[in-house]
C-alpha cells in the first residue's frame, strides 16, 4: 500500500468511528447547514458533536496549516478526505465565509499575528464572518465604494453603508472594504476586520423574493476600528479584495454540482416523465452537469497545483451558476403546478419554488455573470478594448 492508500484507510476508519449517524444523512434543507458562530443554534447534538470533532482535527479546513487550526493535509490528502466523506455520506461539518473567503485571504495577506488571532476560531466555527463589499452605489463597480475610514491615530473611524450583506444580522465579525483615500479609485481602498458588536454598527434585514431574509443593509456610524485590524497595507485593500473574490467565486461555482443535494442526475426522474421534450431537456442537462463536474475536478487540481489562471474562477462561477439556474428551471418544469405551491405542507412550504427563486441570485452574488464574462474576455482572452 502506498502512503496515500494508508491515509485513505485511516481516514475512512476515523470517519466511521467519529461521524454521528445523523450527520451521514443528506441535508434536508438549508436549515441543516452548520454556520457556526457565537450565537449559532445547533439543529441537534449530533451537529454540534460533528463540528467539534472535525474542528479539533482541523478537518473543517483540511488544507490549512495546522498552526492556524487547519488539518495540514496535502492537496492529495485533502481530496481523499473529500472523497471518503462523500462515500460515507458525511455532511460538511461547517460552512462559512470565514472558511471559503476570509481564511484564504488572511493566509495570503494577513500578518502573523492576524493569522494566529483569526484563523483558529474560523476553523473551529467559533466566529462567523460576513462580507462588507457591496454598497448602494457600488455593486458591479465595486471599486466605486465610498464607505469612509478616517485615520484617527490608533484607530480608524468608519462611516457609511453596505448593502446585500449576507447574514450580517447573524455574523460576529465583518471583513469590510473601506475608502481610506480619494486620490485613486482602486488605490484608495483598504481591507478592515471588525466586530459586528462594535458601537455604531447596525443592520436591517432585506427580504428576498423567495420570502427568506438572508441579507441586510449594514450601517456604520462612527465605528472605531483598531489599526491592527487592517489587513495588508493601507490603500492596498483592492489586492486583498480581488484575491478573496477569486475564492468566493470558486466556492459559488460549486453550485453547478447541485448544492447540498449532491449530484443526483435529473434524468433519474425520467421514469415519471411522459413528455419527450422535457425528457430531452433533462438528458441534455445531465450531459452538461457531468461535463461540468469533470471541469470542477480539473479546476481544483489546477488550483492546488498553482497552475490555474487567476481569472479561471470567473469562468467557473459563470458556468456553475448558470447551470444551477437551469437545474432549478427543470425541477420546476418537472413539478408542474405542484411545484408552484407556496405555503402548503404538501409542498414543504413551497420549498421547490423558493429554492428556484433563490438560484436567480447565483448569477448576481459574488459578481454578476456579465462581470465574470468581462473578466474572462479581458484577463484570459486579452481581447482588445475589453
Amino acid at each position: 500500500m502506498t502512503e496515500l492508500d494508508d491515509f485513505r484507510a485511516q481516514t475512512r476508519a476515523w470517519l466511521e468511528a467519529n461521524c454521528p449517524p445523523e450527520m451521514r444523512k443528506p441535508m434536508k434543507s438549508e436549515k441543516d447547514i452548520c454556520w457556526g458562530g457565537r450565537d449559532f443554534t445547533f439543529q441537534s447534538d449530533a451537529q454540534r458533536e460533528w463540528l467539534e470533532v472535525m474542528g479539533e482535527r482541523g478537518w473543517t479546513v483540511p488544507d490549512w496549516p495546522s498552526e492556524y487550526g487547519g488539518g495540514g493535509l496535502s492537496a492529495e490528502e485533502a481530496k481523499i478526505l473529500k472523497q471518503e466523506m462523500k462515500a460515507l455520506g458525511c455532511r460538511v461539518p461547517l460552512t462559512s465565509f470565514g472558511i471559503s473567503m476570509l481564511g484564504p485571504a488572511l493566509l495570503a495577506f494577513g500578518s502573523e499575528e492576524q493569522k494566529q488571532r483569526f484563523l483558529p476560531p474560523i476553523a473551529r466555527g467559533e466566529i462567523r464572518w460576513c462580507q462588507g463589499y457591496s454598497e448602494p452605489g457600488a455593486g458591479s463597480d465595486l471599486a466605486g465604494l465610498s464607505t469612509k475610514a478616517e485615520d484617527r491615530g490608533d484607530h480608524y473611524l468608519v462611516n457609511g453603508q453596505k448593502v446585500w450583506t449576507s447574514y450580517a444580522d447573524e455574523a460576529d465579525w465583518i471583513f469590510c472594504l473601506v475608502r481610506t483615500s480619494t486620490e485613486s479609485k482602486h488605490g484608495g481602498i483598504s481591507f478592515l476586520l471588525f466586530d459586528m458588536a462594535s458601537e455604531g454598527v447596525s443592520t436591517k434585514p432585506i427580504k428576498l423574493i423567495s420570502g427568506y431574509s438572508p441579507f441586510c443593509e449594514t450601517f456604520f456610524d462612527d465605528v472605531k476600528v483598531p489599526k491592527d485590524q487592517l489587513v495588508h497595507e493601507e490603500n492596498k485593500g483592492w489586492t486583498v479584495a480581488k484575491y478573496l473574490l477569486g475564492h468566493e467565486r470558486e466556492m459559488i461555482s460549486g453550485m453547478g454540482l447541485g448544492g447540498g443535494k449532491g449530484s443526483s442526475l435529473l434524468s433519474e426522474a425520467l421514469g415519471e416523465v411522459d413528455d419527450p421534450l422535457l425528457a430531452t431537456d433533462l438528458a441534455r442537462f445531465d450531459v452538461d452537469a457531468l461535463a461540468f463536474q469533470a471541469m470542477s475536478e480539473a479546476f481544483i487540481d489546477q488550483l492546488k497545483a498553482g497552475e490555474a489562471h487567476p481569472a479561471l474562477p470567473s469562468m467557473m462561477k459563470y458556468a456553475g451558476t448558470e447551470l444551477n439556474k437551469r437545474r432549478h428551471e427543470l425541477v420546476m418544469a418537472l413539478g408542474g403546478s405542484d411545484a408552484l405551491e407556496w405555503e402548503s405542507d404538501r409542498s414543504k412550504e413551497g420549498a421547490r419554488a423558493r429554492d428556484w427563486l433563490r438560484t436567480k441570485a447565483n448569477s448576481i452574488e459574488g459578481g454578476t455573470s456579465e462581470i465574470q464574462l468581462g473578466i474572462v474576455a479581458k484577463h484570459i482572452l486579452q481581447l482588445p478594448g475589453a
Partner: protein
Amino acid sequence: MLKLNDDQRMLQDTVRLFMAEKGAISKQLRHWRDIGCKDGFGHSLWEEMGKLGLTGILVPEAAGGSALGQVEANVVLEEIGRNLTPSPFLTTAVAAVRALEGSAHAEKWLPGIAEGKTVAALAIDEGPHHDPSKITMTATRSGNGFVLDGDKQFVVQGASADLLLVAAATDDGPALFAVAPDASGLDIENVTLADSSKAARLSFDKVEVDADAQVGEGDAPLKRALAAGRAGVASELVGVAAGAFEMTNAYLRERKQFGQPIGSFQALQHRAAHLYGEIEIARAATLKAAQLLDEGSERAAMMVHVAKAKAGQVARLAVQEAVQMHGGIGMTDEHDIGFYMKRQAVIDQLFGGPDFHARALAQRS
C-alpha cells in the same frame, strides 16, 4: 389585417389607463398579498371592471355584455399582464363565458359575470401537468343525474368561485359540469401559489348533480373554454413580458455603474434589443391566434398552440433578463420586478406549458 382596428385601439387606450391606475401592483397584487386576502384579488376592482364593460366583453348583449371577441378580450389581458393585476377575468370573463355561451346555464350566470359580481372557476387539471385528453374524473349516470368522483387541482380561484365548471369523463366522452361550491361530498382546499394567487384543490366524493348540470353537449364547451383560455393567457404572458421589459428598460437608463448608465453597456443593449424583438413576435402570434378564433378558422387551434408556447417562452426570457439586469435589487421582495417572475411561472403552466403546446402542435392530425 394583423393589427388592432380603431375600436380595438380605443379599448386598449382605455384599459391601459385603467389598469395602470386601478390595477397597479401596489394597489392590487402587493396589497392583497400583504393583508393575506383569501381570494388573492379584490371584488371591488372586479365590479369596477364590470361597470367599465370589461367583464362582459364576450357576453351577448341580451345578457348585459358587449359581445366582442377574443381579440378584445386579449387587449384587456395584455394590460392585466403588464400590471400583474389579480382578477377573475381570464377564467371567468373569458374561458367560463365561452364554455357557458349558448347553453341552458348561460341565462343564469352570464348577467352576473357581465356585472362583475359572479366568479367562476374551471376545474380541468388532475395532476401537476395539464392534459385534458386524459381526464379520469368520472361523471356516472345515476337516476336522474350524474355522480362525480375524482380530484382536481390548479383550479384558479376555486375557493372564491360561485360556480365551478368541472371537466369529467362520461360514457360519451369528456363533458363539462356546472357544480355549486357547496355541493355535498365536495371538498375545497384553498392553495396559495408562488405569485400569491389562489388555486384550489378539489376532491369529489360521490357528488350528486342533476342531469341538467351538464353544460351544453359533448366536449364542445370544454374545447371552447380551453381555446379561449389558452389564447387569453398567451396575451397575459405577452403583457407580463412587456411589463417586465418596460421596467427593465427604464432601469437600464437610470442605474449607473462605472460612471455611466448600465444601458450603455453593449452586453446589455444587445440582449434588450433581442428581447424587444421576441416580445413583438410573441404578440403578433398571439394576435393571429385571437383573430383566427374570432373568424372561426380551422387554423385557429394550431395557432393557439403556437401563441401559448411562444408567449410562455418569451415571457420566461423576459422575466429572467429583467431580474438579472436589475442586479441585487431584483432579488428583493421590496422591488416589483420579482413579481413578474413569479406570475410568469404560474400562468406559464396554466392551460399547458410551452412543451405541452409544442407537442400538441407537432402531433396535431
